[in-house]
């Protein structure tokens, strides 16, 4: 456990924050379900729930008998708050304690917080200070150290700012959401002391938002001739106007923020005109407009500073700087007025919304703990009895939007509260008192799994051990109307580099029908209106990891060039919408965004679709592959495999011949027969040595990966430049290595090889050795002997001059003169599908 307090809380009138300081770093914690650092200091007792923070704030005006804010102002008084729902009184200390307890739940990386620094306004007297301490103890802290807010803010600035004299007097100007405070702090190397302070508990950013709505936005709307009824609705406070006012407040808040960085902004408002039509109105608001409506309030804060300085007989020149605290100090006018009217420099180097808690956490990080914490219970392990035993009962699947959760609790539940939260942050039961039987309606995420955590807390809001697993409920999925797909459904797309096609999964095997998906691709080649190229949308059923030609075509749309409104340019967008009904009808809709044309067709699963041009190309690719692999097997003396491949090749040749003779064939079913033969042959070829090919691809992947990792380990420059690309390439390694897809592993290897080549080409040693390797080859190996000789002569000179960037270019030129020996290179006129 740390020997210093470390934790600090800014218990504000409007908002509160919690932070931790340790080893020179400050972490301001975020609300786990609110994604922001501030927690509104508002508590609500809504029916049997206790709501704290944002949710409670929503009800503060509508349910004032049960929801309370601003109770910090009442600390140390005998005033209490009567809660109608509880028929009981709550003191400001109790309400503050609830806020403090809630802030404890923000801390995710500490088992318990025994000690804390809590900030208090400079105006707090001893009674108010003691009341704050009491709230801290009620919240479960063993030790509470108080720190004045202006002092905390000065600490944050003093630790951040260099070059500012840290002696003399600073002015802390704190303009928050709802309150304004100003304090003079005396700074010396040894001590920070608040000399005097002044403030207004009812002035802040919310006032500015209201002014912007009333004096600028509504004023402009009321001047419009076709909005006369709006003014009448405003006068009568009609519900439509109240709704509009809330919307305008949000718009004003955004406009205010934008005007802090831009000289003008535009506000767009949808409003109903006198005829009952919705009008979109754009209002331009300048910073000057905004300044004119808030200037009076801002000047009032300056007046308060003058009074404060006069009261203490301090001249403006005696103040070294004004440090800015509170979100409203982002407003440029506020900063300008301070500088202009007071002639004192302004320091805004620390985030004004967190300055107080940051300074307090810096203090906490140096303040030694005086009280020992309770020993924290070890995490629950199997066989250890939990304090609360829970028997939970709920449906694991539901078609409703809400599901009832019931539980019976056993064990010591005195002063225990429970809370249920959905893991995505969209549901929170609030704190509820634990009883023997609990029931809660849980709101479910539509169409998916909702996971809820049930947590129990003691009177200090520290977690209580309970044997309950997370609640998991699936909504809208259990009732399977359709059947699962027996095979993968894929789209065939081009792999231009390999001059072949590949499969892109649309729906996986066992997906439940009906299914619907839109795929966005690009056209992979320009299709001219007067050409013979086609765009082929081929939907296949089979194994996603196999070659496309092994799969069955279940939907095919061929778009002929003469059907196009204009040439279809490579790179233009293509939208393919695919729907499969429960009865397996396939609805394909192809939209070409460039020509704005739509092609659609419905395919029945009982029919077969064959494109002769495509079939010819598939057979050609198959022949090329078989030839290539046959040569490799003969070279490695694997005659058994070579024999099988030879048989397959003969079969493929026969199919090709059949296709050539198709135009003269009298049998109209011949093309179906040839397609069937091709598919069976492709399946046999795919199965032959598939495991061996996969293993070889995986080995090659790891060889390239290890080589690249080695190069990155040995060159800081390469690491800085290529490490992120490398990490990105290997990110999903477990899934693609475990996949059955040779293609997928090969594609990843290719990606790594490109990075490796870039790394190597940046290395002088590699460039030299590559050059010598190329120079040692027979000149006849190059496709253009004379060019190669010329490059080699230039290479010698570049080596002599040690000009390695020139040598790199020469190496690349020589490499381009080496012939592509792959079998696919011979498929020069690869047509493909036209889908990239």
């Amino acid at each position, binding site marked *: 456990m740390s020997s210093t307090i470390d934790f600090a809380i800014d218990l504000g009138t409007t908002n509160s924050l919690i932070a931790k300081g340790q080893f020179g770093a400050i972490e301001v914690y975020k609300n786990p379900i*609110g994604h922001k650092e501030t927690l509104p200091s508002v508590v609500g007792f809504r*029916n049997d729930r206790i709501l704290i923070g944002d949710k409670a704030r929503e009800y503060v005006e509508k349910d004032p008998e049960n929801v309370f804010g601003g109770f910090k102002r009442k600390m140390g008084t005998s005033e209490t708050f009567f809660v109608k729902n509880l028929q009981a009184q709550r003191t400001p200390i109790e309400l503050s304690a609830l806020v403090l307890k809630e802030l404890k739940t923000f801390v995710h990386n500490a088992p318990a917080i025994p000690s804390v620094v809590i900030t208090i306004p400079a105006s707090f007297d001893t009674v108010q200070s003691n009341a704050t301490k009491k709230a801290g103890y009620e919240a479960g802290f063993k030790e509470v150290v108080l720190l004045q807010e202006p002092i905390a803010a000065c600490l944050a600035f003093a630790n951040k700012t260099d070059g500012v004299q840290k002696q003399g007097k600073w002015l802390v100007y704190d303009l928050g959401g709802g309150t304004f405070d100003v304090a003079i702090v005396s700074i010396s190397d040894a001590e920070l002391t608040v000399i005097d302070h002044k403030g207004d508990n009812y002035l802040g950013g919310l006032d500015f938002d209201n002014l912007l709505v009333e004096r600028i936005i509504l004023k402009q709307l009321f001047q419009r001739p076709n909005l006369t009824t709006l003014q009448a609705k405003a006068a009568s406070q009609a519900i439509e106007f109240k709704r509009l006012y809330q919307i305008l407040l949000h718009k004003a808040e955004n406009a205010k923020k934008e005007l802090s960085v831009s000289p003008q902004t535009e506000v767009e408002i949808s409003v109903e005109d006198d005829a009952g039509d*919705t009008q979109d109105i754009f209002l331009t608001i300048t910073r000057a407009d905004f300044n004119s409506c808030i200037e009076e309030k801002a000047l009032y804060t300056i007046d308060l500073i003058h009074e404060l300085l006069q009261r203490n007989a301090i001249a403006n020149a005696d103040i070294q700087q004004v440090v800015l605290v509170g979100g409203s100090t982002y407003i440029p006018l506020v900063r300008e007025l301070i500088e202009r009217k007071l002639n004192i420099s302004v320091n805004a180097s620390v985030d004004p919304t967190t300055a107080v808690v940051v300074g307090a956490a810096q203090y906490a990080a140096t303040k030694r703990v005086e009280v020992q914490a309770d020993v924290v219970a070890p995490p629950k392990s199997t066989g250890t009895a939990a304090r609360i035993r829970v028997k939970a009962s709920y449906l694991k699947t539901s078609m409703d939007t809400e599901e009832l959760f019931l539980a019976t609790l056993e064990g010591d539940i005195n002063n225990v509260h429970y809370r249920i939260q959905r*893991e995505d942050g*969209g549901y929170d039961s609030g704190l509820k008192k634990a009883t023997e039987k609990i029931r809660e309606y849980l709101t479910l995420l539509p169409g998916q799994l909702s996971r809820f955590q049930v947590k129990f807390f003691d009177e200090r809001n520290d977690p209580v051990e309970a044997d309950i697993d997370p609640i998991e409920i699936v909504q809208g999925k259990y009732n399977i109307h359709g059947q699962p797909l027996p095979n993968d459904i894929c789209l065939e797309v081009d792999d231009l580099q390999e001059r072949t096609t590949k499969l892109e999964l649309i729906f996986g095997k066992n997906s439940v029908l009906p299914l619907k998906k839109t795929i966005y691709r690009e056209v992979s080649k320009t299709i001219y209106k007067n050409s013979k190229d086609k765009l082929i949308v081929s939907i296949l059923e089979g194994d996603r990891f196999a070659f496309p030609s092994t799969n069955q075509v279940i939907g095919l749309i061929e778009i002929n060039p003469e059907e196009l409104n204009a040439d279809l340019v490579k790179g233009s967008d293509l939208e393919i919408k695919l729907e499969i009904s429960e009865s397996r009808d396939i609805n394909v809709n192809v939209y070409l965004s460039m020509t704005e044309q739509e092609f659609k067709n419905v395919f029945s699963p009982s029919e077969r679709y064959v494109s002769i041009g495509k079939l010819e190309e598939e057979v050609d690719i198959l022949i090329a592959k078989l030839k290539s692999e046959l040569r490799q097997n003969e070279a490695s003396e694997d005659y058994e495999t070579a024999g099988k491949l030879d048989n397959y090749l003969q079969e493929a040749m026969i199919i090709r011949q059949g296709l050539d003779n198709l135009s003269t064939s009298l049998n109209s079913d011949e093309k179906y027969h040839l397609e069937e033969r091709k598919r069976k042959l492709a399946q046999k070829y795919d199965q032959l040595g598939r495991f061996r090919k996969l293993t070889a691809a995986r080995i090659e992947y790891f060889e390239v990966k290890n080589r690249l990792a080695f190069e990155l380990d040995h060159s800081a420059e390469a690491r800085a430049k290529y490490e992120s690309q490398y990490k990105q390439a290997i990110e999903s390694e477990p899934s693609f290595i475990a996949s059955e897809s040779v293609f997928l592993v090969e594609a990843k290897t290719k990606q790594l090889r490109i990075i490796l080549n870039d790394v190597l080409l940046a290395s002088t040693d590699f460039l030299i050795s590559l050059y010598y390797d190329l120079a040692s080859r027979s000149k006849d190996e190059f496709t253009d002997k004379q060019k190669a000789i010329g490059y080699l002569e230039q290479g010698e000179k570049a080596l002599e001059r040690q000009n390695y960037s020139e040598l790199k270019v020469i190496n690349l030129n020589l490499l381009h003169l080496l012939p592509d020996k792959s079998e696919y290179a011979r498929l020069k006129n690869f047509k493909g599908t036209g889908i990239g």
Partner: protein
Amino acid sequence: MSALINLVNQIFEIEQKNASKGDPADLGRNMERLRHHLDELGLQYHSPLHEKYTDTRTDCVASIVGDLVDASMYITKVIKPVVFQKDAGGNRTIIQKAVVIVEHRTV
């Protein structure tokens, strides 16, 4: 991330406006495509318009207009949508709460 969320808010606003005017410029296809690309970035958004509003909804920041009648509060206007981020496992987390107007509805 905040720039991306702002982008989502703008797309949502265009979508709302377009829908209210009956999609005169046939933007529906483009809107659907934008949603698709956001999804690729792991972002999804949802408008809770007309949904029931209760104390336990922490996916919304509400301004309550008119009378508060607990059992029949509904979302009548959505100023910003709920924005979710998906992780690699497909689990969603809310990264922006919806900003909504809530009213009592008798029907």
